[in-house]
């Protein structure tokens, strides 16, 4: 008799049901994989990008998943460095979500570059002045850290755990996890920031350009901050979705509320900084280059001032206020509203900092540039979602992800 693959003491659905769902999501995954190979084989002409849109949907997806994956580093920071022990019940899942986000980001990057076979030139011929170089280095090293953080969870699978070496390895990794987490926080700070820097340093693009501190534009800090603020929201959101889907309680309410509270304060402070930044940019930076604020929000079919209001108020200040107030956090509906709005807010921010930057005309005789992604781009952007779901399904089924699951569901 071999060891069961499913962790002890938890209930999981039948293999048949599991396989069925796996097949459904797998079909979506295959569609994305097909599109991915099309792009690799035929080239980037398969996309809706053009010379005005060097960056488009993929880069947005990249920035967004990394911001949302920020839950991993920030929860790690809170758990291992600040010492918020309550978060131990969710840190495993945060790491898995982060792992999914970052691996997706790397996959999308591999698609997005015109010469994937030369992708390693970014390391080989590194230009240390480029924000993208900073991103590449920190991203890949941090992904290694995430993998290391993910490893002990994988090794806790009952079958693997039976192997003594792996058992010890898992244990020892856990022991020094704080070191890795600290390194991860350090790396995350820089790559989240340099992703913000990617747009902020573009002094030829008045819509994106920001003044800054030393070599880092304000967007550097805003991106790190917003990722730290919204990453945990995304972790909460995904965990709650997982609870809904599995029909089980996985993490204590208190943990959610704690995360939401921290997120809320982060978000509130971020929004204050962001609003000051926007005001300074609209009043000083852009006019110095001959632009008024409304130049960026008129004369085009999409980007009206609504997008700024949506980002700053509806998906910024509003969720921040919900999450910092006790009532907001304790009302389940309000909590989830706040979490979802915050996630949407960061998606809008990343969209604006990528797509609207490309869209806004610079020379007075040019028009707004519009862009429509092709199905190949959309499919390859959905691909990571399908991959993420599959990985979560596998992790949930075979790994002891939620230490409180047994305790919380013992009644049923």
């Amino acid at each position, binding site marked *: 008799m071999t060891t069961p693959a499913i962790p002890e003491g938890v209930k999981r659905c039948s293999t048949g049901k599991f396989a069925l769902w796996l097949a459904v999501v797998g079909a979506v995954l295959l569609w994305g994989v097909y599109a991915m190979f099309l792009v690799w084989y035929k080239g980037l002409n398969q996309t809706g990008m053009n010379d005005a849109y060097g960056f488009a949907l993929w880069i947005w997806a990249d920035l967004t998943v990394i911001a949302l994956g920020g839950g991993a580093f920030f929860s790690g920071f809170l758990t291992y460095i600040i010492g918020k022990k309550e978060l131990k019940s969710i840190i495993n899942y945060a790491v898995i979500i982060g792992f999914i986000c970052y691996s997706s980001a790397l996959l999308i990057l591999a698609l997005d570059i015109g010469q994937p076979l030369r992708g390693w030139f970014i390391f080989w011929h590194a230009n240390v002045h480029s924000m993208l170089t900073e991103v590449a280095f920190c991203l890949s090293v941090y992904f290694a850290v995430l993998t*290391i953080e993910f490893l002990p969870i994988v090794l806790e699978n009952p079958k693997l755990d039976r192997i003594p070496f792996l058992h010890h390895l898992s244990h020892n990794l856990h022991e020094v996890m704080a070191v*890795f987490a600290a390194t991860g926080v350090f790396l995350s700070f820089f790559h989240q920031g340099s992703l913000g820097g990617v747009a902020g340093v573009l002094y030829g693009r008045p819509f994106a350009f920001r003044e800054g501190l030393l070599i880092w534009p304000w967007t550097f800090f805003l991106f790190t901050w917003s990722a730290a603020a919204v990453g945990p929201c995304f972790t909460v959101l995904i965990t709650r979705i997982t609870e809904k889907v599995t029909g089980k309680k996985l993490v204590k309410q208190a943990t959610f509320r704690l995360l939401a509270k921290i997120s809320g304060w982060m978000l509130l402070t971020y929004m204050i900084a962001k609003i000051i930044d926007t005001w300074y940019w609209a009043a000083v930076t852009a006019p110095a280059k001959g632009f008024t604020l409304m130049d960026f929000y008129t004369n085009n079919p999409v980007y009206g001032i609504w997008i700024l209001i949506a980002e700053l108020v509806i998906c910024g200040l509003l969720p921040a206020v919900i999450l910092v107030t006790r009532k907001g956090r304790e009302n389940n509906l309000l909590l989830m509203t706040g979490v979802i709005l915050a996630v949407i807010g960061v998606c809008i921010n990343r969209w604006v900092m990528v797509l609207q930057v490309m869209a806004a005309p610079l020379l007075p005789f040019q028009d707004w540039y519009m862009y429509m992604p092709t199905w190949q781009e959309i499919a390859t952007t959905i691909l990571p979602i399908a991959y993420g779901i599959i990985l979560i399904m596998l992790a949930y089924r075979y790994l002891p992800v939620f230490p409180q699951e047994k305790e919380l569901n013992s009644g049923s």
Partner: protein
Amino acid sequence: MFPFIFEWAWDIPHLVFMGALWYALSIIGAGLTYCILKSLYDTATEEGGESHEHH
């Protein structure tokens, strides 16, 4: 990553960037090496007969 390319020149930004990079990499490397060695040691010092369990 490596100062192998022909136009490479060491300057302050390079030192800062590469310094931070190698610092992070060495911590990760040291941590991993420690874990692996420790685990090997732990495995070896445990009850001896376990190494051929599945054969």
